[in-house]
């Protein structure tokens, strides 16, 4: 008996891109969505705790907004350098790719250094996972878990970008590899936009 369906192309046979992009890029997007959902969960928990805490501390007593603005400036700038590196990779301009990848790594390291400085200051003043000298004790848990989780993403991004830079220097990095690293880095910047607004400004 002849199977007529076998003659027709099927989505499950491979070679079909339902979203018009390669599988590696699609997997990166799916990872970004799932990671974004984890951050959404953390932000929702933070929102619940904050709304349910009558003695939530005043942000101006704990944070130096000028310093946080500098952190934000650093991360946004590193996103722009990353986008430039991705565009250069598409054009096959290896020198520019390497230069802007290194600038992005530098921006990521600077951000991590500033975050370590901010954490140290708060810990010295008595803030911790279960303690907060300015009011609601759960503030510390929210702050350190949320910014710590984001910081771990920045650290992973710096490692991935450093590896991509080394591969680019050796002529082994493909344009798509640089683009995938870039997608992850922009996601890290995107999450900071939410943390900066919801935690430091509101």
């Amino acid at each position, binding site marked *: 008996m002849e199977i007529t369906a076998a003659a027709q192309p099927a989505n499950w046979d491979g070679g079909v891109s339902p979203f018009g992009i390669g599988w590696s890029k699609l997997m990166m997007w799916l990872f970004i969505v799932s990671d974004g959902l984890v951050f959404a969960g953390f932000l929702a928990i933070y929102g619940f705790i904050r709304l349910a805490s009558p003695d939530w501390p005043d942000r101006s007593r704990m944070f130096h907004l000028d310093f946080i603005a500098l952190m934000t400036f650093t991360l946004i700038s590193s996103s*722009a350098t990353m986008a430039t590196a991705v565009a250069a990779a598409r054009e096959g301009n290896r020198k520019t790719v390497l230069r802007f990848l290194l600038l992005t790594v530098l921006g990521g390291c600077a951000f991590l250094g500033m975050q370590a400085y901010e954490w140290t200051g708060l810990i010295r003043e008595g803030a911790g996972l279960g303690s907060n000298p300015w009011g609601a004790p759960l503030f510390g848990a929210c702050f350190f878990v949320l910014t710590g989780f984001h910081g771990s993403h920045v650290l992973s991004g710096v490692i991935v970008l450093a590896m991509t830079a080394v591969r680019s220097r050796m002529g082994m990095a493909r344009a798509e590899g640089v683009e995938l690293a870039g997608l992850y880095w922009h996601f890290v910047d995107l999450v900071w*936009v939410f943390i900066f*607004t919801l935690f430091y400004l509101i």
Partner: protein
Amino acid sequence: MTTYKIYWATWGVLLLITLGMIAAGGALTGKLLLVSLLLAMGVKAALIGGTFMHLRSEQLSLILIVTLGLLLVGAILFAGIAADAVRVLRLSGDGG
């Protein structure tokens, strides 16, 4: 070099919005501040996703999966949690 210009123009706009948000924090209060900051946050997220992550040049199916999935879950989480948190605050007797 012209392809890079769009990224640096976006960078400039993102910085201006960030400065505007910080200024709004000192000048506005209450619901006006909240709405302004949330709107600015949305514009910044759209700029990063659309321009830096090139989402605006992808297929509509991918754009919908990425944005709608996150927005819907975010909305459901907020709708479910915000009301409950306000109830907890009222039960504690401090929220009126």
